[in-house]
């Protein structure tokens, strides 16, 4: 009976991050069971790496890790090469799970965001199984104590589990792009992308261009995931935990952003598409214009045209993509402008001219002090807009008021930071999601 305790305890420990992350991934109104099923299926993705380890032990001449260790001298290259192999094997394992899930239940993945989240669940499944193995090994090893178990639990639950989720999330997003490549290729075409390479491969292989794009996107996602995984593992092997955490952190921000984009939440699979009330040739002119104006950055106009075109052709995914893409880019543009203004050297703020026919009398020093005190209080309360207004009025009366100028500049800086923060938060805000699949 006692030998089961470490196993049960390891399973319970490994379940803790799973429960937390599954709750984070699942959104209101979504069916939890598809995430749980994918997670459980994802635990099987540890099987291929374990089979390989078994084979390497049985046939040492095939053991690629030993081959690398004996043939490469420098530690950094050993770490990189070994972990490239690890990254390739583990990411392919998780990717296969997502592919099989999609093959069996194509209705699960109807948005890019859903492709990403299901892949995250597959990654979570892998991390869960791997964590059990690690926790158990430490638990039963007499050389390790409780402290080691706690440290490993914390690090693996937060960093390594997140790592697996992030890497899978990235290939998942591209898997989604591949799945909906027919619409996405059409969208790319209207944006003026030549797709010459795709056409060439298409002719060479006899496959349709969107099928080529599908495989290309899949490979691209896998390649990025494998690369990040290899870098992450190698950093840990080389004892550079900070770099490893940085990779996971940056990846998590990217994955979270992709999950929240309008394009990511766009519902692609509509079983029955309604027809367009516009002639195909005329609609093509509008699509061409959308591509042209998207490239020119006329995003507001693009969104307005899309709204009008969707009234005529409500199920056109390419138009929906144009609109979502413009909305995402608009948010990015706003965030970039707000960030740029924070770092831009602020020009000497000039007081706004007093909107009065006759100039107001100068304030006495005592009165100015009272106004400055009130401004200071407002500043502390975060009422920067009011501070700016009062400072402008005060400087119109007392142009040399150094107190007003200092507060004006400080409030201006704070307001810029607030604006940047608001714009950045908007990137990760949940949009109203009229396109989300219902009941799936």
């Amino acid at each position: 009976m006692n030998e089961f305790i470490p196993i049960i305890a390891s399973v319970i420990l490994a379940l803790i991050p799973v429960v937390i992350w599954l709750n984070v991934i699942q959104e209101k109104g979504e069916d939890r069971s598809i995430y749980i099923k994918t997670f459980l299926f994802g635990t099987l993705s540890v099987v291929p790496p374990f089979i390989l380890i078994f084979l390497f032990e049985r046939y040492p001449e095939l053991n690629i890790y030993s081959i690398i260790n004996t043939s490469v001298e420098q530690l950094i290259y050993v770490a990189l090469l070994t972990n490239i192999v690890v990254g390739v094997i583990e990411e392919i394992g998780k990717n296969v799970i997502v592919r099989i899930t999609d093959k069996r239940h194509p209705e699960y993945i109807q948005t890019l965001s859903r492709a990403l989240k299901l892949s995250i669940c597959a990654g979570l499944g892998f991390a869960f199984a791997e964590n059990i193995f690690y926790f158990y090994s430490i638990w039963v090893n007499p050389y390790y104590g409780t402290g080691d178990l706690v440290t490993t639990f914390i690090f693996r639950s937060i960093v390594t589990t997140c790592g697996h989720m992030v890497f899978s999330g990235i290939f998942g997003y591209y898997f989604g792009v591949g799945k909906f490549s027919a619409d996405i290729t059409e969208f790319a075409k209207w944006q003026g992308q030549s797709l010459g390479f795709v056409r060439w491969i298409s002719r060479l292989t006899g496959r349709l261009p969107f099928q080529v794009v599908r495989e290309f996107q899949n490979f691209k996602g896998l390649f990025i995931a494998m690369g990040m995984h290899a870098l992450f593992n190698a950093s840990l092997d080389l004892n550079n935990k900070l770099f490893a955490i940085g990779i996971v952190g940056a990846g998590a921000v990217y994955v979270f952003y992709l999950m929240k984009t309008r394009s990511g939440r766009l519902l692609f699979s509509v079983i029955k598409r309604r027809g367009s009330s516009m002639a195909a040739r005329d609609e093509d002119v509008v699509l061409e214009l959308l591509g042209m104006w998207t490239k020119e950055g006329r995003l507001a106009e693009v969104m307005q045209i899309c709204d009008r075109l969707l009234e005529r052709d409500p199920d056109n995914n390419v138009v929906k993509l144009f609109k979502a893409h413009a909305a995402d880019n608009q948010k990015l543009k706003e965030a970039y402008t707000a960030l740029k203004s924070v770092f831009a050297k602020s020009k000497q703020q000039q007081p706004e001219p007093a909107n009065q026919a006759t100039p107001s009398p100068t304030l006495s020093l005592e009165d100015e002090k009272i106004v400055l005190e009130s401004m200071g209080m407002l500043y502390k309360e975060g009422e920067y807009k009011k501070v700016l207004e009062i400072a402008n009025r005060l400087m119109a009366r007392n142009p040399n008021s150094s107190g007003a100028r200092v507060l004006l500049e400080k409030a201006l800086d704070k307001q810029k930071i607030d604006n940047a923060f608001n714009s950045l938060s908007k990137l990760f805000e949940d949009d109203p999601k009229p396109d989300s699949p219902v009941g799936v």
Partner: protein
Amino acid sequence: MADISITTEDIPSTNPAKAVKMLHFTGQLDESNVDEKSKEVYQLIEAAQGPLYLIFDLAGLEYMNSKSIGYLTDWYTKLSEKQGGIVLAQARPNILDILQVVGITQLIQSYATIEEAKAAVIQ
């Protein structure tokens, strides 16, 4: 290369400070000719000393591509800066359909007949 011809006609205006011209479009405006033909319209706009109003008679225009819509908005902006403008007349249903979806008709008025367009400009 698709055929397109643009013929220009001066329209007498009651206001001497306001020049009015009518441009008759016949044929198809597409990638093969739009850049070349747009130059003629730009020349008219640049040559104008004061406010210039252009009436585009689109009765003979069978097709316009996206680039020509881009030019149309640019001509409108340039003329508006000079206190002038553009009005459209007799556009075919397919052309009007495109312009409505694109939102051009919110900026540029479109009239069913030449007389209505003239009346709107010369007042």
